[in-house]
């Protein structure tokens, strides 16, 4: 039996992917899917894709992937069977047939489902039901903890809010510039930036002083009043007075 592929319009939007197209081609053969010749089907698919290419229709990638796979399957089916070759082409063909049968079964099932007496289309529920109501009655429950926690919540909420920002010891940029420029003086040796920091300081103040001193060093370097040297990123930073 020879189903002319010319009957198929080349409407790519009509199919949902290669498997859908294969199933449509198979159905056009009008035989039980279990009896279908996979080889004939493969040839139809390849002819279809070839035609689409001749007409310069853009084919989605998955159609081409399927075409390549089917071309491989076709050659494997036509060549004398080599038992060493895995997977067995007969097996591949059978798997393809099983997939087509399953998709076909679901398509059929979907059509039968849609044809049933559907609520709101073929049969109708009562248009204006009175409705059923469930009225809840019964004792209320709350415990003492809920009660006092609620009061705590309200008290906390209604208490006047005052935000206090604690004083932090900081070194200002101005102070750092004064300190670094004074200390660097006319030193000709490289000195690490840490040696410019005040000794006493708390950890917080040292961090502030380091940040300010670094900015001070950059500023002084820009003004040509200090030279900077660092071997690599994150390496110690050295300062000295510019060579006269």
């Amino acid at each position, binding site marked *: 039996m020879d189903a002319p592929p010319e009957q198929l319009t080349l409407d790519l939007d009509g199919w949902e992917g290669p498997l859908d197209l294969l199933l449509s081609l198979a159905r056009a053969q009008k035989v039980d899917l279990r009896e279908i010749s996979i080889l004939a089907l493969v040839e139809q698919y390849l002819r279809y894709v070839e035609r689409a290419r001749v007409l310069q229709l853009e084919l989605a990638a998955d159609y081409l992937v399927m075409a390549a796979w089917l071309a491989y399957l076709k050659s494997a089916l036509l060549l004398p069977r080599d038992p060493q070759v895995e997977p067995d082409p007969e097996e591949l063909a059978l798997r393809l047939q099983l997939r087509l049968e399953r998709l076909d079964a679901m398509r059929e099932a979907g059509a039968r489902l849609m044809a049933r007496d559907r609520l709101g289309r073929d049969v109708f529920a009562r248009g204006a039901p009175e409705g059923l109501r*469930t009225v*809840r009655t019964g004792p209320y*429950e709350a415990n003492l903890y809920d009660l006092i926690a609620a*009061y705590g919540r309200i008290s906390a909420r209604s208490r006047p809010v005052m935000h206090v920002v604690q004083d932090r010891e900081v070194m200002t940029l101005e102070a750092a510039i004064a300190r670094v420029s004074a200390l660097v003086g006319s030193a000709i040796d490289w000195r690490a930036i840490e040696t410019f920091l005040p000794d006493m300081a708390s950890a917080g103040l040292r961090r502030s002083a380091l940040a300010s001193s670094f900015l001070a060093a950059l500023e002084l370097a820009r003004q040509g009043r200090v030279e900077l040297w660092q071997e690599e990123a994150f390496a110690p930073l050295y300062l000295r007075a510019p060579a006269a």
Partner: protein
Amino acid sequence: MTDPQTLRAVEAVLFAAAEPLTPDSIRAHVGELDVRGALAALVGHYEGRGIRLVERGGRWHFETAPDLAHLLRRDREEVRRLSRAGIETLAIIAYHEPVTRAEIEAIRGVQTAKGTLDVLMEAGWVRPAGRREVPGRPLMFATTPEFLSHFALKSRRDLPGIEDLRAAGLLDPVDLAFEQLAVEKTDEDD
């Protein structure tokens, strides 16, 4: 004798209709049939059943039999929890009684829905307690003996005070952590 097919058609149209129908609008669906005859036959058919066909101002509809109306409403016995607004309002009344609705709202910082006080009174925990002798004479609310027994309190003096609440950490919920600083500051100033 009305043809059974007419009866079926009229019955289905009335059942599916979203509103009561006049005989003319029924005819628009079923065609030129004996609609009035069918309506009369259906009224007879549903006599004494759980539903009945009735006419109201020339329009027809099915409704459930009036003596069965109580079945459509089911009372379910269950323990109900107070809403957050409910428990807060109850707490304010318990700590500040007698207190007016305006005072409750001032303390909570939000309006109190009418239903909230109703629920507390329905629960039997709150009662009206006279009127405040100020302009408008607003109603005051107080707790009841049932309130004390439900919460296993001998008297209102058993309610933990502000200092107890603070000690228990109930004055500084997590989302108010910032206020912690303010509270400590205030204590120091004392």
